[in-house]
């Protein structure tokens, strides 16, 4: 059902059979930092401000209480779109639409977790150290360590991918951007339901810390 592919940052995407590939997790700060380094235009001040509400956590120090700090959150959809434009050729990557996001959710939710063999195979694949020929070996190994750490916290496919207990993620809806997903209550007290609640009307002058984004490769 799933294949594993990697983007140019060395981070994994889950590819649905005959369908698009979704970032296994929301975009991390490590990935976004590489984007900042290579594109300029986002200086130290922008980055410091972006990390105020959700301070950076090193992947070496991830635990059940702080894992949100690994991910890039609290940024506007325009910045997310600039990231996905940088990630690939023109329009190769994007942020998902509402329908696409839900498709990914259902594909994970359908698993009989954790007994599902497919999921076990996938997570085993993800936890392997990738071979040297990968260009971004350093970041791929980083992603493997992250996978190890998160799998130690969650062995549930939806939670492992942070489709649950992660963030509210920017998604395309008609010509606007809305949010789908639900943070865990310890991070942000809320009544959102991952699948059904469409978070609308988010202020762009002060994006909340629970707003993150995930990439899709169509």
């Amino acid at each position, binding site marked *: 059902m799933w294949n594993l592919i990697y983007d140019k940052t060395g981070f994994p995407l889950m590819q649905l059979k005959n369908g698009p590939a979704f970032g296994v997790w929301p975009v991390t700060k*490590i990935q976004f*930092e590489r984007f900042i*380094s290579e594109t*300029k235009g986002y*200086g*130290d*001040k922008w*980055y410091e401000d972006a990390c105020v509400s959700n301070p*950076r956590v090193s992947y070496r120090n991830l635990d059940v209480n702080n894992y949100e700090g690994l991910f890039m959150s609290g940024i506007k959809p325009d910045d997310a779109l600039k990231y996905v434009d940088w990630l690939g050729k023109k329009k190769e990557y994007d942020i998902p639409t509402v329908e696409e996001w839900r498709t990914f959710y259902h594909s994970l939710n359908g698993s009989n977790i954790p007994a599902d063999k497919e999921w076990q195979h996938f997570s085993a694949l993800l936890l392997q150290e990738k071979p040297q020929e990968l260009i971004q070996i350093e970041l791929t190994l980083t992603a493997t360590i992250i996978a190890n750490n998160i799998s130690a916290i969650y062995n549930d496919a939806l939670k492992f991918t942070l489709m649950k207990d992660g963030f509210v993620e920017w998604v395309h809806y008609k010509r606007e951007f809305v949010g789908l997903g639900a943070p865990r209550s310890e991070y942000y007290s809320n009544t959102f339901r991952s699948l059904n609640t469409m978070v609308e009307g988010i202020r762009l002058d002060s994006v909340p810390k629970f707003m993150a984004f995930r990439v899709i490769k169509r």
Partner: protein
Amino acid sequence: MSLKERMGHFDIRETADVALIVDASETAGNYRKEIVQLTNQLIDSLPPGCAHDLFFLGCSTAYETYKFSQNSGLWWETHKNRGSFFAPVAKNLHDNDRIVVIGNGPVYDLEDWTEKPFAENIIFAKMGDSSLRGPIETGEEMGNPNAQDIMNKINNPIISVTIKGENFLPYYWDNAIYHLVKTTDSNFELTVKSTEKQQIYGITIGFFGEKVIAEVQRESGINKVTFSAGTMLPPRWDDLDDIGKEVFKNAIVQQNYLCPRCKQEHAAHQLICSNEGIWGRCVYSSFGINRGIFMLKEESQRVLYSRHFGTAIRLSGNSAAVLDGRKLIPYHFDSDENKWLAGEAMSPYYCLDNKYLLAI
């Protein structure tokens, strides 16, 4: 039982390689003049023989340091506001590099790199009011240092090197400054001490043993160096002169010979003519004044000689001969006692794989 055998190269250098990392980020912008000035001073102070590269925070491109003074303006503008991230540079750094980050304001992803061996070697030259490493206690931060302060940290001369390991016995090494030392009945080490002259400490060795490391004693303390795969140089064979050929041909058939030096008859296996000089002289003038282990072999009408690299030579999968004065002492590894046991001194012209061994 055979011992483990390896060929290994120890990359040991008097001065570590240096990576200068210039911070041209937004938070460093106000201190551009100071950062560029210190970088230029550091480049001028780098010791000869050390390899060095220059980077900018947030970028993986390695620049040639000596071009910095002419290009600092252009390069700064290229990297201005790039972002204070270590990751792009980190993949170009080596474990033993000495790293100097010159700038101001936090390096945001430093914590990701604290477990790398090079992390302890980072010197943060803080040229403004804001820490580069923040609360991350890795390396050392210096406030507005001058070049000499930093160079004092980078220069870390070697006092001695000792290569050792379990059941270690080297039988080939390509750097003659190292001496084989027998520390106890069963242990061997290769050692060298620094001298006033500049020395090259890198060495390739062939050896028996396990867990072999080089302990490098520097002024700042001891660091341990592991080896990478090494390659043995093939022996260089030269023709023995005609007089030497006569000596050799008599010796291997146990015939006395007429000494080419004193013109008197010597016993077949006598290698030193004691009638010449205070300490005597080797009867093979082709060897010159060199001492050590020599190998001789016949090839059709020729007799060839080669000087072995090192003062011990492999005899078999669990034995080696060690030069002791002008004798070769065979050592056999006894697996029951788990140590090297010495045998009786070997006769001159001991035949090993059609080669004859001499201890001079």
